[in-house]
């Protein structure tokens, strides 16, 4: 498949003609990024592997409904967001696990690294874990995918101003959560 084709071109081709090579090219392009996004948004690597598969199955199944008025990224991450919402609703009905599962969770966390982070104040992972799943999703849309507030508002179906103020509010809270760790570092340093 021609690498010069944009994601929008590939999606349009798959949508109009059912070209499976175009679909395969899209999967290969987005596979890693979607897995990283889902791992951090869900906080569970193994769940993210299943969610990633569900995302691409939906992409294949609903490909014909693609509206070229939207950029592929916006349209695609609506699917990702819906898959995450469905998963969260199912999780909410289950008993809460006591630890995470996978590279971003507690189960496989490196104890050496944790000790260092605790001492020198690298509390970002802990602070992010305190965010709600929807807030983590917003942070990732902005900083992992580097989407604009307008694109994020289309994905989350919220006004652009709401998205922006919510994001800044999250940053303010994270700054507050990180400040005690920074104080620790300063006190250790001097």
């Amino acid at each position, binding site marked *: 498949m021609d690498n010069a084709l944009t994601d929008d071109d590939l999606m349009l081709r798959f949508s109009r003609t059912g070209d499976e090579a175009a679909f395969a090219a899209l999967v290969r392009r987005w596979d890693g990024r979607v897995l990283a996004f889902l791992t*951090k948004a869900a906080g569970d690597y193994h769940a993210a592997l299943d969610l990633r598969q569900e995302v691409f199955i939906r992409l*294949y199944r609903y490909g014909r409904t693609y509206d070229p008025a939207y950029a592929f990224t916006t349209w695609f991450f609506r699917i990702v967001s819906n898959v995450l919402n469905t998963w969260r609703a199912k999780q909410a009905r289950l008993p809460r696990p006591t630890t995470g599962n996978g590279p971003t969770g507690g189960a496989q966390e490196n104890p*050496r690294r944790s000790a*260092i982070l605790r001492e*020198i104040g690298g509390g970002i992972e802990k602070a992010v874990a305190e965010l709600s799943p929807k807030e983590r999703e917003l*942070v990732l849309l902005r900083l992992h995918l580097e989407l604009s507030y307008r694109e994020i508002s289309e994905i989350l179906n919220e006004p652009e101003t709401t998205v922006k103020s919510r994001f*800044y509010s999250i940053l*303010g809270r994270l700054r507050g959560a990180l400040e005690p760790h920074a104080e620790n570092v300063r006190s250790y340093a001097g």
Partner: protein
Amino acid sequence: MTTPKDDEQRWFAHFLGDEEDASAETKSEAEAARRTVEELRAWATAPVPYLSVDPAFVAHPGRPARLRTAWPWAMAAALIVIALGQVNFSFQVGDAVIAWGGTAPVPSHDAAIGLADRLADLERAQAETLELLDAMAVKTMIIERELRNAAIALAHNQRVEAQTRLRDMEQLVRYSAAGGVFVPVGYNE
């Protein structure tokens, strides 16, 4: 008149690249905003172990993979021919005697009927053999893919671990340069 919250938002906007604000680079209070954005961005872009997904499986999750090479078919056909060469039998249906094998003493028109029926039996046997071979090939492909994925995951895990160690060391060095760091008792690595 701006409030501290307004200032903080402008500094966040500056460090995110949303808006320019010169005071973000000069005010010491902006340091916390810069650090927050920097650490959050590092978290958001940190790599995770990567396992690829098979587009063909995603597109057709219920359909097993098909044999792509001709040799299993040729082998199956050869096996059937060899097996048929080893057997010799006959049986009777009504007036017709159906026989297989070089020594069966039957009239030629009965032999033709016998051969036609036997051919149908052979076709069924061939179909069953091919199904078995197909299933074996699918299992082989699944095992091969899982082995490949496990190897890729291992390599990625090692890479991520190495990056993490490097980041930790850089962080330690940075904080050591700032005047030292508290190291827990018994921590030797």
